[in-house]
């Protein structure tokens, strides 16, 4: 069993937190993990991605080969499309609807949605709105994770355990908010 996931977004949107949570759950299962991150200049508002590889066998490359990713999980709609060369034909694209507009020439959003909807296996949700609805406005990334987990083959309990392990030191309220965001993502 192998899962290759591209996490996408803009610097500061919290994709590394998603990677940490999935990674923690995978390690708990005794799986191998490699997670390549982007640090440095690109983190200043540029596009960022993380290659997250999970497997019950040893993993060699830190990078996912082009055409081999099982999923692109993107917290920003346009950024989900930037990594299509990595997605295999049956792969899933799971994207947030809310654009992050820090560039002057951000394209017409409907054209972005059209491209995402053209991918056979896609999920497009408004994670920012959903997060606000469940009073967890800073956990948009966890809503996205919730929307992704059934396609990743993880149970809600496994992910909750990982969330608890990671957020426990920030207090019960933060853990609970993330649980709500996760559930809302699963229900979306």
């Amino acid at each position, binding site marked *: 069993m192998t899962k290759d996931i591209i996490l996408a977004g803009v610097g500061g949107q919290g994709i590394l937190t998603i990677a940490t949570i999935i990674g923690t759950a995978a390690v708990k299962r005794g799986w191998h993990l490699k997670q390549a991150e982007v640090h440095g200049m690109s983190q200043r508002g540029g596009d960022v991605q993380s290659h997250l590889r999970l497997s019950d066998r040893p993993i060699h*490359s830190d990078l996912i080969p082009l055409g081999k990713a099982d999923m692109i999980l993107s917290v920003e709609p346009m950024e989900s499309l930037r990594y299509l060369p990595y997605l295999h034909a049956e792969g899933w694209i799971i994207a947030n609807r809310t654009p992050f507009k820090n560039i002057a020439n951000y394209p017409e959003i409907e054209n972005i949605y059209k491209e995402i909807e053209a991918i056979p296996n896609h999920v497009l949700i408004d994670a920012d709105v959903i997060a606000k609805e469940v009073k967890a406005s800073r956990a948009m990334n966890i809503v996205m994770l919730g929307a992704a987990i059934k396609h990743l083959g993880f149970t809600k309990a496994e992910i909750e355990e990982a969330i608890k392990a990671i957020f426990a030191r920030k207090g019960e309220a933060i853990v609970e908010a993330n649980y709500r965001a996760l559930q809302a993502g699963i229900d979306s």
Partner: protein
Amino acid sequence: MEKLMLLGDEALAQGALDAGVSGFYAYPGTPSTEIVEYVQRSKQAADAGVHRTWSSNEKTAVESAIGMSYAGKRTMTTMKHVGLNVAADPFMNSAFTGANGGLIVTVADDPSMHSSQNEQDSRFYGKFAMIPVLEPSNQQECYDMAFYGFELSEKYHIPVMIRLTTRLSHSRSGIVRRNPLAQNPLKKPDDLFQFMLLPAISRKKYKNLIQMQAKYTMEAVQSPFNKFDMEASDYSMGIIACGLAYNYLMENYVDGKVPYPVIKICQYPIPQDQIRELYNKCDSLLILEEGMPIVEEMLTGINLQGLKPIHGRLDGTLDRDGELNPNKVARALGKVDTYGKDVPEVVTSRPPALCVGCPHSDSFYALNDAVAEFGRGHVFSDIGCYTLGFMPPYNAINSCVDMGASITMAKGAADSGHFPAIAVIGDSTFAHSGMTGLLDCVFDNSNVVVVILDNATTGMTGGQDYTAAGKLEQICEGLGVHKDHIRVFIPFKKNHDDMVRIYKEEIAYQGVSVIIPRRECLQVLKKKNKMEG
């Protein structure tokens, strides 16, 4: 034992801590920064009193590390590839002095220039200095090589280089730890001539270094990190895979069985006899290297006609520049390549940019207005977040070469009559390599305006503290800049007109001026507020 999930950088740091290191010396630089950041967070390091504060630059860092090694302790100095250029003098000479306590020089290269001004391969420096080089292929090897590197260094009294690249530095995986070792006791060198590089002594040392090469090669042959899989089913090609490139090779064989003989090189000097054997056995060779084709060049030499083909970056089998990936290696192996779909045209680029509300942006807008009458081409700049001032909407700067070059380039231009000559440098970069340049300006009374953007941190690498924090005016005055021409303002939009006026006054002044726009980095401020809140 439970596995730790660590970045390659962090695995190396934890390895060094467990191997009894007494001190780290470094200046931040992507992709090496996380090594010392990890140590600064580590309770183990604090409890053991491991030195872990930042140095002013890579040269002072390497020199301090040599000093700690002199005292008999294990020490590691870390830097990005261009940092080794800054530290090249002590680094090259450390091969002559050798080590007393274990000395590891860790250099993180950035092929494809994710966050760097050039691409260079530090293995050349290792070969240049004639010291052993270790190149881990995964996070566990990063950890293990800290132990191994210190042992090797102390066995032969020689500094050892560990060469990382971005993908390993910044990729996370599981690490199994070993039992920690105690730190070395203080112990002076047995030979008090060891660190005395006078010509008469150095000549002997050089002969000795040359003699030792055979031993270093023998260590590479016996290294637990090198592998010689000479038995195979297909001898039409033999493969040499160095460091991280080994993973991309194995990625292309899901069952782990490569049909060709393979030499994995993670320790240098290259094992020559084994490579010769591979060459004799096979019809051709494929060389896979992350970075520059150093091994390939050693093998192809001057490309004599009639030899068997050697494929790699030099003959175009692999791209000559940029980092490797599984697909490039698949094509080089003649395997079917995979690809998803093209990026739709609607996707536009999203380059990095200064944060909204960044103090640098206000400093740049005012500077642009102040120099508008002279046209563009008057602002020399440097390495840091503010290098993004080159991008629209600022278009404010005209050069970025190396740490500190803004001041000295402005000086050279001013000396030739170029007016105005303005340098824009960050506060941390000024501490790194700007002070001596400013002294040059004062010595000649060069007609320059030096703008030191003071955001109270090393911003681009994520907000580390630095050695000159809180002392900028004192330093400039101490270097001889007249205090009437050390001007400080707070870069806010509402202060725009005052800022423009101050820039203009100092441009008009014939001599050395320093202007310090001072406002804290927003990222650091955010982090602080988070911790307090």
